[in-house]
């Protein structure tokens, strides 16, 4: 009875979906190639405004990894008009700074060479700097100070903030760089002024200190989180030849070396209007918006050449790859398969397949978490990107179970997908979620604006209206076929995360020691475990002698080691009796 009513509902939903989802977008293409998407909507007197540059880390090459993202930061640093009290002086100064920087680079390179040959221990240690190097750094600091005197600090931000702009930010990914803000409805012209100005007259002020900010961002997101470094390594291991293999934030060595000249070259090609799409959603008058677009964005000139698509394709994977990490995190497994790019017919099938596996009523949760009780959470997802795609399964092992056991259980679920056709009701449930999700994803003006931009970045904005039908058309046979096509052992890469013992409560005996001393004590403990009582006693005598002549701040350390030795001797001799 229940089943019948559910299927009926399903039928109704299908009909409903086909009729509903249509986002009315007005599209304008300027003669310089820039595209503008307009969606007037009622609501509060505000406009969600943004634009996307069709460039991301995938367009970089070794040596300039992280440049797309660094660039995103630079776009807030003002222009020839915004952010300076004297642009001519400013440009002269910047030229000088670049020259000094080039000389500093030479010094750095010679230290890197020495470090490579083992002549010095650390190329970044200030004590190895030559007098000339130190002098250049001082000179650069002076120039920075002078630049600051000419600057109107953060004027770009202040102009928008004063005018009631909110949520201004930007984002960089592998495939795109997007810039956005909300502006009051009467400030539409301000948005056109500001955005066309920074595209037309950018000046990368504070370039070198902003590079440091980005480095801090890397420390924040990657280095100082429990799994950040390992996730990055897993990415690089998964992609063999594709430029998806380096992190969006870039490798530290590249971040330290990127020059302003490299940034300007990159800008000229990738931020030309023919590589941009803008979008406005909210309280707009489309006729006025078109007029302003022509007036402001129309001033931008086409780039020197059309940006080329990425050439380097991923090599087919021939053998399983595996990474075993010990991290301060829950025991977990991630399994990745190479799949297809966004928009490929199989990409839609893989989306649906991932949804069948995920969520509270998905197969992984029901099987691994509820029935078998070997995992505490589990999920899957398809990540179709512009040039390549991947499918990932992941799960957290329940305490007492290993990630490898969970890995095997995940394969079992994949095998089911490869052998049996999914149940019609189960499939309909997932399709219903896609149908409702299509509405939810366009509820907010801001969300719709970003979605249209990202879609236009790869396959065109109109996919927002045509994709739902592709998801609804997926059949049980499609799913079985796709599962057999991509989920092969030689096509997978696995990350196993074992739990490294957490820092945990500190041994109270070690309180008051420096970290270095604690480490030393730890190492000694290991050595002591293998020593004989006679050796220990000899060591103890030696230690007492040394302690007598050691400085006051070292006494605590000696006491701790002494206590450790005495305890160990007592333990060994006690054991004999």
């Amino acid at each position, binding site marked *: 009875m229940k089943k019948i009513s559910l299927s009926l509902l399903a039928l109704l939903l299908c009909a409903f979906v086909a009729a509903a989802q249509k986002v009315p977008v007005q599209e304008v293409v300027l003669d310089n190639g820039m595209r503008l998407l307009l969606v007037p909507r009622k609501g509060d007197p505000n406009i969600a405004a943004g634009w996307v540059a069709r460039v991301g880390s995938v367009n970089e090459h070794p040596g300039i990894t992280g440049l797309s993202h660094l660039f995103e930061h630079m776009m807030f640093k003002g222009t020839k008009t915004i952010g300076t009290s004297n642009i001519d002086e400013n440009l002269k100064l910047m030229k000088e700074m670049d020259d000094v920087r080039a000389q500093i680079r030479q010094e750095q390179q010679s230290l890197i060479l020495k470090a490579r040959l083992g002549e010095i221990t650390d190329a970044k240690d*200030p004590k190895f700097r030559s007098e000339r190097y130190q002098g250049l750094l001082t000179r650069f600091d002076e120039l920075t100070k002078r630049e600051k005197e000419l600057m109107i600090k*953060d004027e770009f931000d202040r102009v928008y903030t*004063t005018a009631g702009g909110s949520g201004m930010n930007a984002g960089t990914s592998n495939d795109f760089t997007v810039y956005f803000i909300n502006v009051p409805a009467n400030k539409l012209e301000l948005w056109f002024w500001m955005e066309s100005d920074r595209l037309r007259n950018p000046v990368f002020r504070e370039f070198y200190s902003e590079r440091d900010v980005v480095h*801090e961002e890397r420390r924040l997101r990657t280095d*100082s989180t429990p799994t950040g470094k390992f996730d990055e390594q897993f990415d690089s291991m998964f992609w063999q030849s594709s430029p998806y293999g380096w992190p969006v934030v870039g490798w530290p060595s590249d971040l330290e070396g990127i020059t302003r000249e490299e940034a300007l070259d990159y800008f000229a090609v990738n931020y030309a209007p023919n590589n941009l799409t803008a979008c406005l959603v909210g309280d707009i008058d489309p006729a006025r918006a078109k007029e302003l677009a022509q007036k402001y964005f129309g001033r931008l000139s086409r780039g020197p050449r059309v940006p080329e698509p990425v050439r380097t394709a991923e090599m087919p994977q021939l053998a399983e790859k595996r990474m075993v990490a010990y991290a301060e995190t829950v025991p977990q497994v991630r399994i990745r398969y190479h799949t297809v790019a966004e928009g490929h017919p199989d990409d839609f099938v893989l989306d649906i397949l991932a949804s069948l596996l995920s969520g509270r009523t998905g197969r992984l949760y029901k099987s691994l978490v509820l029935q078998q009780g070997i995992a505490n959470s589990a999920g899957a997802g398809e990540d179709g990107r512009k040039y390549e795609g991947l499918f990932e399964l992941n799960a957290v092992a329940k305490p007492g179970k290993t990630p490898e056991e969970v890995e095997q259980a995940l394969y079992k679920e994949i095998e089911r997908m490869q052998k049996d056709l999914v149940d019609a009701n189960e499939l309909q449930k997932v399709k219903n979620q896609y149908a409702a*999700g299509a509405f939810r994803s366009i509820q907010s003006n801001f969300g719709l604006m970003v979605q249209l931009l990202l879609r236009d970045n790869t396959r065109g904005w109109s996919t927002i209206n045509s994709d739902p039908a592709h998801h609804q058309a997926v059949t049980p046979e499609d799913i079985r076929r796709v599962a057999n096509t991509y989920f092969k052992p030689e096509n997978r890469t696995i990350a196993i995360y074992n739990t490294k013992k957490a820092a945990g409560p500190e041994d109270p*005996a070690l309180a008051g020691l420096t970290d270095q001393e604690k480490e030393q004590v730890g190492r000694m403990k290991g050595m002591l475990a293998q020593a004989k009582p006679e050796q220990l006693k000899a060591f103890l005598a030696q230690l007492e002698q040394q302690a007598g002549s050691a400085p006051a701040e070292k006494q605590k350390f000696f006491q701790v080691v002494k206590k450790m030795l005495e305890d160990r001797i007592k333990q060994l001799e006690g054991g004999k009796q």
Partner: protein
Amino acid sequence: MNKRKTHKLLSAFLGLALLALSPVSLLAQTQDPTIPAHPRDLKYTQLTYTPPKREQYRHVLSNGVVAYLVEDHDLPLVNVSTLVRTGSYLDPVGKEGLAALTGSQMRAGGTTSKTAEEFDEAADFLAASISSSIGPLQGNAGVNLLAKDVDNGLGLYFDMLKNPRFQEERIKLAKSQLLQNMERRNDSTTGIEDREWNRLIYGANHFSTRQSTKPSIDSITREDMLAFHQKYYQPGGFIFAVSGDFNTKDMIAKLEAAMKGWPVSKAPLPEVPKMPYTSVAGVYTVNKADVNQGRVSIGHVGIMRDNPDSYAIGIMNDILGGGGFTSRITSRVRSDEGLAYSAGSSFSFGTYNPGVFRASFQSKNPTTSQALDIMVEEINKMRAGKVSAEELETAKNQAIEVFPRNFATASQVAGIFAQDEFTKRPADYWSTYRDRIRAVTIDDVQRVAAKYLQPDKLVVLVVGNIDEITKGNPDKPQYSLLKIAKDGQIHRIPLPDPLTLVYPTAP
């Protein structure tokens, strides 16, 4: 139809493009005289905005329960959310985690008529997103679904609110997940920072600091959850916020029907405990040797939200560190020196207990002390001198111009008014808000900075590789952690046992 429109437009622009090819218009293109040289010369039309009125959406249902209903027919979706008078402040001592578990298990554990599995399947097939949780000071339950499914969805939703089953296997699973995550409490410096910050500011025994432990989770039973639910989930403790594609009259009838026969109690809840603790100023550190960036928070207790100075304080904090790039702390620590990715401050106003002033940043080990020094300097500067007219205007304009964003969507309108009713905010709050901001002067800002920023009371918390951070930067020896410490001491907080939160004591 739309397509045709676009085509017409395109050809209109093609015409323009052709014109643009002549040399005269090319010149005009680069130096359009109607484009001002600086955006300050742009002219704008006046924008008048009146915020929506609470009474317009407020309805008292036949059982006395208040509901805010805001229709919006743009998309075929309906959103219902319920605020519930309860909270983890009601957790009995020794059973920390009871409220949170009750909230999540209401959703995860089925209902008396449906097993957890049946309930999940039914909700997922409707593509209804149903949720339940209990935070420190209130419970929240919500359902978002397609308008055509509203009857079925509301049926499930009220079944959950009224008759949760608390299925044993789901409780066992939830506990296993909680304990697994609990073990990882000392892994991330973010988690450590938040925990120790709360302990330093509110003291170890305040309800907002008390956390669940293995013993407290182990001791919580299904019966405890049933009793907790029974006590607090009844219509007298509910306020509804409903928005989306419905007719108000029909929706009222649906809500009333759903609660028919459910007794309403108006018995008041125990009061939210006051904050008896006074934090002790000083430099506190937690060592986490394997990270290359220090996380720093500094601050002290703030004010209640009904303090008339709150408007001036809000503007003051915007200028100090709350207003993004234009604020002083961000500008100096991030833009000038490149010492941090994020650096700023917040000044929160409490409803039941005073809020907190907190400034924070993250910086690499050698420069942590330098950034900290700048931050303290900016706090002192804020108290000592007047802000500029430009700074004041930026902050005030921002607050006034952004104001309509509070009511951007139907669900925001319903949500904000329901929340106001929940916390008994004065009815004229929103209608007078912008005038109160406009009234703030430069002198006000300095007065509140001197009064409410209290350098003697600063609690400084540093989490990271403390040895490296203490060493500082060989190029800039003038900055040191020790210099910031007024009592000349760097207090070390050890990491507690993650499962029991027992802290080791020095021998």
